[in-house]
């Protein structure tokens, strides 16, 4: 296959379509919304976009180390596997709503899943 995942799913346009849906889910999910309370909406929306671009296999400059640092303050507040699972669920539900084919959803879930230990600081 010549195109990578990010291109196959529709690149930045797909990310833009997903941001609103995903972010609304995260903010209203009682299991995890508290982690997003203190963060300014404007910056958050940009970060959700970074998150989705990453999960969609798009261009990014995040290393495992950066993921670790970026979430370290959340780990201190008790971020654990159950929260990680909730984010994964919201991601999958968002993609389903956008009618993304299951095989592509699985590819994206695998990319996000690969960061679990870094995000949780293990």
């Amino acid at each position, binding site marked *: 296959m010549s195109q990578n995942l990010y291109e196959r799913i529709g690149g930045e346009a797909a990310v833009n379509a997903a*941001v*609103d849906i995903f*972010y*609304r889910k995260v*903010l*209203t999910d009682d299991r995890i919304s508290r982690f997003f309370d203190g963060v*300014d*909406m*404007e*910056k958050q*929306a*940009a970060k959700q976009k970074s998150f989705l671009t990453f999960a969609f296999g798009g261009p990014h*400059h995040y290393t495992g180390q950066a993921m670790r*640092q970026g979430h370290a303050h959340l780990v201190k507040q008790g971020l654990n596997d159950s929260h990680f699972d909730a984010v994964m669920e919201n991601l999958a539900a968002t993609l389903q709503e956008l009618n993304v084919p299951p095989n592509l959803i699985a590819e994206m879930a695998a990319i996000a899943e690969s960061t679990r230990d870094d995000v949780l600081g293990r």
Partner: protein
Amino acid sequence: MPRIRYQQRTYVLKDDESVLDGLTRHGVAVPSSCRGGVCQTCLMRAVHGDPSEISQRGIKESLRERRYFLACACRPGADMEIALPDDNDLPLIMTEVIGKEPLNQNISRFRLRAPHGFVYRAGQFINLHHHEHLRSYSLASVPQTDNYLELHVQRITAGRISGWLHDKCKAGDPLILHGPFGDCHYSKRDIDQTLLLIGTGSGLAPLWGIARDALAQGHRGAIHLFHGSRDATGLYLIGALRRLAQRHRNFHYTPCVSGGGASGNYRSGRADEIALKQFPHLQGWRIFLCGNAEMVKSAKKKVFLAGAALRDIHADPFEFSADAHIAATP
């Protein structure tokens, strides 16, 4: 740790430190005000190295292409060489005050001569220079109908620039400004869309401009304006807004008073809460939020959760300037 080259010297930033914070920590004075990526007073130019995407948000296209960025929002991943804006890219604009009148106890209307060739949209803001200070004020005038620039300035207790404008500045005085900036303005994308405008205090300035701009451009969808203040004396342009609502059937005005003691003429409560109670479902609406920064930020989240799309939410939180704090701490 990224290094920043600026005016022939090199400064080392801490990890995750903004360019503005890093330079300030090293004792380098850089113009700034809100420190929150809103006011654009900290605009700088990258000579080498790439500014982050976040640090270029809200900057107009032509400047973005010339690698302008907001120093307060830029946390560089690599070394950069930077410079202050070039006068050719960001010219200083000279104008003068042509009129000044009180709108209520604390808010005055300033009319400025429209500078030659100054192209703007109602609701955008300008950055006003006064000595070493830079402050943002929103444009309440509509370019198609008003041949002057209009600002509404609220007096802030011990406020340096608002105080100077209220107490000293008079018709005939020269003013220097940059601009216009920001994307809090009407655009004729969909003239049937419903618009929700929520503002507190002098946050009415951009909304007064946006509402009249939309009507002048033939907007057909409903336009709901909620203006809030703690007490009734903080409201203004009440008569003019009521007349606008009489002239245009699609324009609706709701004055709100949050501090209690509201009479039959005003709704009692906070403007954003009253608006959301009346309109809990905002799918497909376009939203404008201006004024008190806390109100704007919390309303932004609420309208988003009520269904408004992020790209349909325009907000200008009137963040205070940060140089107030610098001046206060030695």
